[in-house]
C-alpha cells in the first residue's frame, strides 16, 4: 500500500462535498471577469481615453499601489489592470479556504481519524485536496479566458491574463498546504494563509510604488519587492502587450516547493497535531470579561480591529486618490457620470467623496450583520442555553449584542470619514477641516446602519432558523438597490426600500433631518420587534 492509496476516492469525496462551492467559484469568476471587462470597455472606448487612464495609472501612487503596473494602452491591458486585484484576491482566498477545508478542518473535526483508520495512505488527504483545488483553479482560469475572449479581447492576451490569475490561486494552494500543517485549527491555518496574502499584497504594492516609469511611455518597471510576491508575478505576465509566458512558471514552482514542504511536515507529525503549539490562555478571567458587555467586547474585538485597519487603509487611500479625481476623469465623461450617479450633487470631488462614504456604509453593513448573527450561531451551537440559564435576562443579553454592533458600526463609520477626510486634506491642504467635515458626514450615515441592525435583530427574534439567510439577502438587496438601482432605471418606490437611499449624500448635498429621524424611528421599531419576539420564543437549535 503506497502513501497515496485512496487519493482518488478522497478527491471524489471533496468534489461531492464542495460541488456547489466549486461551481460558484468557477462560474462566478468568469461571470465577474466578463461583467468587469464589459463595463471597462464602456468607460474607456477609445485610444484617447485609455491613454489618459494609463497616464494616471502610472503617475498616481494610489493607482500603482492598488492596481499595479499597466502593460500597455490596449483595451485588454486596461481591463486587466482594473480587474486583476479583485480576481487575484478571490483566487488566492478561495484556494486557501478550500485547501484548509479539506485538510486541517478534517483533522480538527476528527473526520481525518475515521478516514485514516481506513485503507488510506498518509499523503492521500493532502493530495486529494491539492488535486481538487489546483483543478478548480485551472478550470476557473480556462472559463475566464473564454469570458475575456467573449468580451471581444484578443485570444492570446485573454489566455495570458486568465493564466496569471489562475497562477495566483495555484501559488496560494502551495502556501495553504504548508499553513494547514502548521496550525492545529482550521481558523489558524486560514489566518496564516490570509496573512501571507496580505504580505504578498504589501510587497507588490511597495514594488510598484517604488518602480520606475520607462522612458518610452506609460509602462512601469516594478522594483524588486514585486518579484517576491505571488500577487506581483501575475502583473508581470504583461497580458495584452508583450506577454512574458515564462513568468507563469513561478507560481507552479511555488506550488511544487509548498507541496514538498507540506509532505515532509506531514511525515513528521501526528494526525491532528500541528507544528505551532496551541496558545494557552489565562487561568482566571480579567474582571473586564465578567459581564455580557465584557464578553461581547472580547468576542468582537478581534474582528473589529481587523475591520478598523482595513477601513483606515482604504479611507486614507481613497482620500488621497480624491486629489486626483479631477485629473483622472476630466477627459472621461463616462466615469464622471458614474461617480455623479453614485454620489449626487454637482461638485465632482464632493460627489466622489460622498460616493466613497456610501460604499463604506454598505461595507460596514456587512460588519453589523456578521456581528449580530454571531448570537444566532451561539444559539444553534448550544452556547446560548447555559448563558440564559444564568441570571442574565434575554432582553439584557440581546440588547448588549445590539449595542455592541451599533458601537462597532459607529466607530468604523467615524473612522472611515476621518481617514478619508485626512487623506484628502493631506493631499490638498487643510487636513483639519476635511477630517472634521468627512468624520461628521460619516456619522450621518449611521441611521441606515441602525436599520440594518434592526432588520437582523427582528429576523433573529421572529424567525431564528431563517435569520442568517434572510439577513444577508436583505443586505445584498440594499446593495443592489443602492448601487445598481439608478443604473438599471428601477422605479423610485423600489429604491426607497433600501435605507441607504434615504441618508443624505453628504458632502455632495446638504443635510436633511427628516429622513434621519424617520430611519432612526424605523430602526427603533425593528429593534423593539426583535427584543419582544426573542423574549417570547423558545431557543431552537
Amino acid at each position, binding site marked *: 500500500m503506497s502513501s497515496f492509496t485512496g487519493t482518488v476516492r478522497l478527491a471524489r469525496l471533496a468534489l461531492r462535498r464542495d460541488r456547489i462551492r466549486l461551481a460558484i467559484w468557477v462560474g462566478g469568476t468568469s461571470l465577474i471577469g466578463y461583467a468587469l471587462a464589459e463595463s471597462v470597455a464602456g468607460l474607456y472606448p477609445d485610444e484617447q481615453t485609455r491613454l489618459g487612464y494609463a497616464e494616471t495609472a502610472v503617475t498616481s501612487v494610489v493607482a500603482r499601489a492598488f492596481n499595479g503596473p499597466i502593460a500597455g494602452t490596449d483595451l485588454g491591458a486596461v481591463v486587466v489592470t482594473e480587474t486583476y486585484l479583485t480576481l487575484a484576491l478571490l483566487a488566492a482566498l478561495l484556494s486557501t479556504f478550500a485547501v484548509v477545508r479539506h485538510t486541517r478542518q478534517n483533522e480538527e473535526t476528527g473526520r481525518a481519524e475515521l478516514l485514516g483508520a481506513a485503507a488510506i495512505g498518509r499523503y492521500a488527504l493532502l493530495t486529494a485536496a491539492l488535486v481538487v483545488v489546483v483543478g478548480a483553479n485551472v478550470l476557473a482560469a480556462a472559463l475566464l479566458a473564454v469570458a475575456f475572449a467573449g468580451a471581444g479581447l484578443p485570444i492570446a492576451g485573454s489566455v495570458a491574463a486568465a493564466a496569471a490569475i489562475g497562477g495566483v490561486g495555484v501559488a496560494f494552494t502551495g502556501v495553504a498546504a504548508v499553513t494547514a500543517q502548521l496550525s*492545529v*485549527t482550521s*481558523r489558524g491555518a486560514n489566518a496564516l494563509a490570509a496573512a501571507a496574502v496580505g504580505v504578498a499584497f504589501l510587497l507588490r504594492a511597495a514594488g510598484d510604488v517604488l518602480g520606475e516609469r520607462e522612458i518610452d511611455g506609460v509602462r512601469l518597471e516594478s522594483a524588486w519587492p514585486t518579484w517576491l510576491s505571488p500577487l506581483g508575478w501575475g502583473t508581470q505576465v504583461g497580458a495584452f502587450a508583450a506577454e512574458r509566458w515564462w513568468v507563469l512558471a513561478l507560481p507552479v514552482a511555488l506550488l511544487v516547493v509548498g507541496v514538498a514542504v507540506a509532505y515532509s511536515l506531514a511525515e513528521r507529525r501526528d494526525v491532528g497535531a500541528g507544528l505551532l503549539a*496551541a*496558545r*494557552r*490562555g*489565562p*487561568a*482566571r*478571567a480579567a474582571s473586564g*470579561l*465578567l*459581564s*455580557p458587555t465584557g*464578553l461581547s467586547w*472580547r*468576542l468582537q474585538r*478581534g474582528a473589529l480591529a481587523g475591520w478598523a485597519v482595513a477601513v483606515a487603509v482604504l479611507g486614507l487611500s481613497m482620500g488621497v486618490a480624491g486629489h486626483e479625481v479631477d485629473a483622472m476623469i476630466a477627459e472621461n465623461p463616462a466615469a464622471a457620470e458614474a461617480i455623479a450617479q453614485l454620489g449626487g450633487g454637482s461638485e465632482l470631488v464632493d460627489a466622489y467623496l460622498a460616493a466613497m462614504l456610501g460604499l463604506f456604509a454598505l461595507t460596514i453593513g456587512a460588519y453589523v450583520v456578521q456581528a449580530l448573527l454571531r448570537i444566532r450561531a451561539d444559539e444553534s*451551537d*448550544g*452556547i446560548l*442555553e*447555559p*448563558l*440564559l*440559564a*444564568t*441570571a*442574565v*435576562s*434575554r432582553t439584557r443579553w440581546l440588547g448588549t449584542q445590539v449595542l455592541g454592533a451599533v458601537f462597532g458600526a459607529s466607530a468604523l463609520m467615524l473612522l472611515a470619514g476621518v481617514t478619508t477626510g485626512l487623506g484628502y486634506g493631506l493631499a490638498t491642504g487643510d487636513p483639519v477641516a476635511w477630517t472634521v467635515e468627512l468624520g461628521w458626514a460619516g456619522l450621518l450615515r449611521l441611521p441606515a446602519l441602525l436599520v440594518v441592525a434592526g432588520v437582523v435583530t427582528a429576523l433573529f427574534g421572529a424567525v431564528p432558523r431563517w435569520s442568517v439567510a434572510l439577513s444577508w439577502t436583505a443586505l445584498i438587496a440594499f446593495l443592489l438597490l443602492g448601487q445598481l438601482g439608478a443604473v438599471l432605471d428601477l422605479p423610485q418606490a423600489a429604491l426607497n426600500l433600501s435605507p441607504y437611499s434615504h441618508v443624505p449624500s453628504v458632502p455632495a448635498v446638504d443635510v436633511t433631518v427628516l429622513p434621519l429621524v424617520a430611519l432612526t424611528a424605523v430602526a427603533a421599531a425593528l429593534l423593539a420587534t426583535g427584543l419582544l419576539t426573542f423574549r*417570547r*420564543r*423558545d*431557543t431552537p437549535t
Partner: protein
Amino acid sequence: MSVISIENLVKTFGGVRALDGLDLRVEQGEVHGFLGPNGSGKSTTIRILLGLLRRDSGQVRILDGDPWRDAVALHRRLAYVPGDVNLWPNLSGGEAIDLFGALRGGLDQGRRDELLRRFDLDPTKKCRTYSKGNRQKVAIVAAFASDVELYVLDEPTSGLDPLMEAVFQEEVRNLTGAGASVLLSSHVLAEVEALCDRVSIIREGRVVESGSLSELRHLARTTVTVETARPVTGLAELPGVHEVRPVDGRVRLEVEPEHLDRLLGHLVRFEVRALTSAPPTLEELFLRHYGDSADNGRSALAGGAR
C-alpha cells in the same frame, strides 16, 4: 417543602407531544434521579424549568417562582450543567468558568480552585482544545463552585472517565450535605443508585414511576434461587409466586415482596441447602418500563444487562 413541583405539564413541538401531562416533585435537600430513554422528554422538562422553553399548559413552580416569568431572579439561586457543553473556542477554560460564575452572581474562588484540582482540569487551555469530557468538567466546576440552592444536572457525566465519575459523586454528596437540592437526569444507573434518594422514571412525556429506590423495589418481584434436598412441590399454588423454572437441580422463581415470608415457610419443609435472594436492580426496574415500547429489544436489552 418542594423545590420543584410540576403538575400536568404539556409541551408540543409542531405535531409532536414531547411532554404529555408530566408530574414531578423534588423535595428540599434530596438528590432526585430523573431517568428515561433518549427522546422521552427529560431535557425538554429541564429546559422548561430553566425558562428556556415556554410550556403549553400545566403548573410549574421552581424555588417558589415561575420559571418563565421569574427566570433571572431564579437563575441566581440555581446552577445548570447541560449534557452537551459547547464553549467559546477562543476563551480559556478558566475564563469560561469565571464568566459563568459571574453571570450567575458570584463564585467561591476557594471552591473553584479545589474543584479544578479534584477534577484535574487545566484552566489555561483554550476551550477549542478541550475534549468532550474536559468541556463537561468546565461546566461542572462552574456550577459546583457557585453557592446555590438547586443544581439542575442534565446527564452531567457523559464523557467523564470512571475516576472522575467517583469524584463527581463525592462532590454531589458534598452539595447535599450543605443542604442543596439536586435534580439529576442520567443514563448511568449505577450513578443514580449511588446518589439518588428518590427517582422518577419518564416515558413518552409522562412520569410512569416515582418514589424512593426501596419503594420502587417493593413494587417489583424478587428473584429467589433455592437448592433443596427433596424436590419442591406445590409452588404454583402459593400466592404471588411466578415464573418457576428448574435450573441445574435448583429452582429459580420470582416472588412479590409481600409474599416472600410465606414462600420461605413453604421451602424449609423440603430441607433448604442453599438459597439466594436478589432484589430487582434499578436496571430491571428501568427496563420494565422501557420494555413495552420496544418489545423485541426488551429481551436483548435484559439479556445483555445481566
